[in-house]
């Protein structure tokens, strides 16, 4: 009888209990937050009964509307621009002959993932202040869009690059062999096969932009409140379950996006 040589982690003592504890620590606070969004009382710590009123008041809240609108404008624009940049960068770094500085370019693209966000935030703020001071230029909400686009690029870049590296290069040779010009080969073979990577890249970029707090907080000007900033402002006042309702809506939007991109990726991979 051949013993399985690979250690099965599930056989290790304590594996199950540790796993369960980790999941509980991760999800119980979120669960409590969601449950209290249905609280009929006006405290987020004392349960009184079930109601959907807080969702109603959240949806009628003008400030929430304006914050949601700002968030969508910034996130959608930043997602589109950063995904296009990331796609071009990934193609330029996987489908060309190795060039000097390839490793450096890779570092530069991924650096925002490693630099502490507060430093990026301060740097971005100083940069826009400098532009405003020197040239008298202020792009309004464009400042936020620019800042978000920049820090979204590495998030969009990673899944796209991974997909390109996994792709069988022989397919592109086969297309060229069958009379496809480089542009046609890209359009008909590489791009369609890259779509799942682009979709997950875009979804990641959207989520990262959607819930960014640190950079947005520093760069945002008056009237540029996004949803995370709005929530932050609300919890500094006496909190009502309305904030739980808004947070839950945000959470559901995020889950929706992640699930959709996951499903698309899985269906395409088949």
């Amino acid at each position, binding site marked *: 009888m051949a013993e399985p040589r690979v250690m099965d982690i599930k056989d290790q003592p304590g594996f199950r209990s540790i796993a369960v504890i980790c999941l509980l620590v991760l999800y119980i606070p979120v669960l409590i937050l969601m449950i209290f969004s249905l609280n009929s009382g006006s405290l987020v710590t004392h349960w009184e009964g079930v109601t959907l009123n807080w969702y109603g008041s959240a949806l009628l809240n003008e400030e929430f509307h304006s914050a949601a609108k700002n968030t969508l404008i910034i996130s959608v624009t930043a997602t589109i621009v950063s995904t296009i940049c990331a796609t071009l960068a990934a193609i330029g770094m996987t489908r060309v002959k190795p060039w000097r500085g390839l490793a450096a370019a890779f570092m530069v693209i991924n650096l925002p993932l490693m630099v502490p966000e507060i430093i990026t935030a301060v740097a971005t703020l100083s940069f826009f202040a400098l532009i405003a001071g020197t040239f008298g230029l202020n792009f309004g909400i464009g400042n936020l869009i620019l800042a978000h686009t920049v820090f979204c690029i590495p998030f969009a870049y990673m899944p796209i690059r991974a997909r390109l590296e996994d792709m069988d290069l022989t397919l592109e040779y086969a*297309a060229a062999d069958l009379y*496809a010009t480089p542009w046609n080969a890209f359009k008909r073979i590489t791009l369609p096969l890259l779509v799942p990577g682009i979709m997950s890249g875009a979804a990641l970029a959207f989520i990262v932009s959607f819930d960014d707090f640190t950079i947005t907080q520093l760069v945002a000007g008056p009237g540029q409140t996004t949803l995370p900033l709005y929530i932050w402002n609300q919890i500094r006042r006496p909190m009502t379950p309305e904030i739980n309702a808004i947070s839950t809506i945000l959470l559901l939007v995020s889950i929706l996006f992640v699930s959709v991109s996951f499903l698309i990726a899985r269906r395409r991979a088949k």
Partner: protein
Amino acid sequence: MPEQPGKNAIEVRGVRKVFGTGENQVAALDTVSVSIRENEFFTLLGPSGCGKTTLLRLIAGFDFPTAGEILLHGQDIAPLPPYKRPVNTVFQSYALFPHMTVAQNIGFGLEMLGKPKAEIEARVAQMLKLVKMEALKARRTSQISGGQQQRVALARALAPQPKVLLLDEPLSALDYKLRKEMQIELKRLQNETGITFIFVTHDQEEALTMSDRIAVMSAGKILQVGTPRDIYDRPAERFVADFIGETNFLPGTVVSKQAGVATVKFASSATISAGYPEGFNPTGEVTLVVRPEHADLVPDPAKGTITGTLSNIVYFGTDTHYHVKLDGGGENFIVRHQNSRSRAVTYETGAKVGIQFEEDAARVLKD
């Protein structure tokens, strides 16, 4: 008919291909020249790393030669990108487009050539019929078996009616039985389409059974080009003799030669006539090559050209191999007998035996 005249589909002239730079330079192809005729099933045969796939990639246009010319019907195609060459490839991994159906895959080349839709449809239907895949034309390529993928890859490469079809070890991923079937299928397709096939393989049996002519390659060079019979019966070099089939090597000394036949003396002072490759002038110490089935055992050592002791007898069902330790020393000599009911003599290990040679059994090798 080794030198039958015919028009050349592909002429490779003095092609070199060097990979890497400086100290890491590797010559994958070292000044190779070969002509491949129209309507020929031509095989590039050699071990992995011999340069056969590099040569195929140069003809396809995926790589460009460091030096030399590649002519297609007399026109130099070496500088052209792959999409401008009327040459198609069947890849080892098939490289079918996973996001397209079988029919879309087959039609892709024609579509890229800008053919009208009706023509593409007609041609795809014809190709589906040719490779017997009509029933599966709407399937995704991931939903069909390996053998079926192989057929689709063939149909896709044949659909644009290329001047030359390149096949890069296309059968290596198939199991034995399917491989045998596809060998016959490939020969049929080549006969029916009349397209020149250039087939790359490391499988000598595949090369011998399918090819009109074979080029044996080693270390970036073409060692010998000829019909399967030429290559098998008249190998020019030790590598060719050794790579294809089982072989005996015997040392000897040339005593005289005349009209392409040398008289070679063994250590035992017995002599044998042996042909030698054209343009080669054998002198002094040489190596002879003898195929195991071109020699015979005799029970009386005095009647053998060379003598020895039977050291091993290996039974293979269809035939039996006798390993003979030669009296002069050196490698064991193998004699193959086809097993038939009429063979009267049986041999025992340890018996003294003589070995006789059929006429033309021995050849002088170049090295």
